[in-house]
């Protein structure tokens, strides 16, 4: 069949429409495109037990970002590893082909690999690996729809799924991202804001232990902006952790009913 793709029509149009000046994304009164104030998070919806076949799972929706995470195990490790008396955490993140504005390709992209690494690093410190020696816990995430702040949503959702699977953890990991547009700090940025940002900050922490498990910063930051950004993220993480806690509580009370 001689069918060949001429152009990806949606690609050009979407990208061009997203690249705008920072002025378009935040009004002088400090209102963002979607009506939020700069330090306001997107409406979040969390739910555990989204996938029945998994040992534990969670679904998270932060604005337009939608993510499912399944946890399997602890189960026998895939390949023979060197002698080790702690368990292994195996993380994998993938995008659905329709997650973005342009159709993705099957097969693991570098972005998926990087996200998988980041997910691992964010969770590693929170999971009590010594409680499942010689076995593996698999954490698999599927991003159904990418709408900005994908990684932090995956991280929070994954820690919920781990809790749902009954994996021993020191604390829940909550994560949030922040975009800097000029000197404006926009908490929990959308995709449009992320594309135009001058700097970004992603923070994952164990809120009740007051420990940062993952931190990612890009762009040039002054000390003042940096301190403020960190504080904003920490506060937001604490709030998010509260929401995650109540989600877990609800799910257990549902079972009792």
């Amino acid at each position: 069949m001689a069918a060949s793709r001429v152009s990806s029509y949606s690609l050009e149009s979407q990208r061009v429409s997203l690249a705008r000046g920072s002025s378009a994304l935040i009004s002088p009164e400090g209102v963002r495109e979607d009506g939020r104030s700069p330090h306001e998070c997107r409406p979040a919806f969390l739910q555990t037990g989204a996938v029945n076949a998994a040992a534990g799972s969670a679904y998270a929706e932060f604005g337009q970002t939608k993510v499912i995470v399944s946890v399997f195990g602890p189960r026998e490790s895939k390949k023979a590893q060197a002698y080790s008396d702690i368990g292994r955490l195996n993380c994998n993140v993938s995008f659905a082909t329709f997650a973005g504005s342009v159709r993705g390709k099957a097969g693991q992209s570098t972005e998926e690999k990087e996200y998988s690494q980041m997910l691992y690093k964010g969770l590693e410190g929170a999971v009590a690996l010594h409680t499942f020696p010689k076995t593996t816990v698999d954490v698999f995430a599927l991003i159904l729809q990418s709408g900005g702040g994908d990684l932090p949503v995956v991280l929070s959702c994954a820690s919920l799924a781990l809790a749902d699977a009954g994996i021993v953890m020191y604390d829940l990991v909550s994560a949030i991202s922040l975009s800097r547009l000029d000197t404006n700090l926009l908490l929990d940025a959308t995709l449009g804001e992320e594309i135009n940002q001058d700097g970004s900050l992603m923070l994952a922490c164990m809120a009740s232990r007051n420990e940062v498990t993952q931190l990612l910063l890009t762009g040039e930051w002054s000390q003042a902006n940096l301190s403020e950004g960190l504080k904003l993220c920490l506060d937001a993480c604490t709030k998010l952790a509260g929401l995650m806690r109540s989600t877990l509580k609800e799910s257990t009370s549902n079972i009792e009913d």
Partner: protein
Amino acid sequence: MTEHEHAASVGEDVELEAFRRLYPLEFLEKFLKDGVRPDGRPLGRARSTLISVGSLPHAEGSAMVKLGNTTMLAGVKLEVMTPSVDFPDEGRIVVDFQMPAICSPHVRPGRQSELEPVVSEQIRNALSSSMMVDLRELNIAPGKAAWMAYLDVYCLDSDGSLLDAALLATAAALADLKLPEVAVTDDGKVLPASSDVQEHRSLKNIQSKRLKLGKIPMALTCAVHPKYILPDPTAEEEAILKTTITVLTDFSGQLFSLYKPGGEVLASTSTVQDCFALAKYRGKELQKIFNNAVIDAEADDAMVED
């Protein structure tokens, strides 16, 4: 409950679970003898079925189907292609069934599940034999441009009867698919309708539209036991009985295809006929659910347009 009784019931639970694991077939047969299935439904009934369309704003058409625990999410992404010389006024639909690692403990990331190509092929067959979509509907400018629809069905939760759920999601996503309004130049370049018209003199606008659908295919998988036929089996039932027959029909019960890939139990003619009958009954049931879901979505559409 006293503590003692509680302990006893826990003991029973453990025993039951052990029986279920050690003698799965006997466990199942005990239920079937009483005319119920382990999840509590009567022998001949399918699980509750939910269809919702338009759940993915990035996709031009999308649908989510829940069949008991089995969950499917289908999304259609459109791209512009040059039609083949043989069929200058036809577009293409490329169907792919995906089982990401999240859906089942048996799937590993990076390794294709055995079922992925099987279900993909069956959906493709069903689409082509039912002629649900006339590919000429995807035409933009004959010989120059046509829509290529990438239809990806993701299994989000795998609990048996994957083909049934996946085919339903495929059909619903195609029913939800809305071809966007575009403008076409003389040489077949396709531009978003909103783009600057002054620059290109010979622009022809093509209105946004939904596809006209022909017969809508559906599938009913039946797990076969020498004595019983279990429509819409769960993953556990599929694993225990090891034999399934999938009947592909349209909603009116008109048969397209009968699919039985091996298995431990032979299918006699009467078994086959029983499966046909079950599929016919199921077709009526599904038609209602399908129409409600799709019509609801279209009504929403109309409201937005008003």
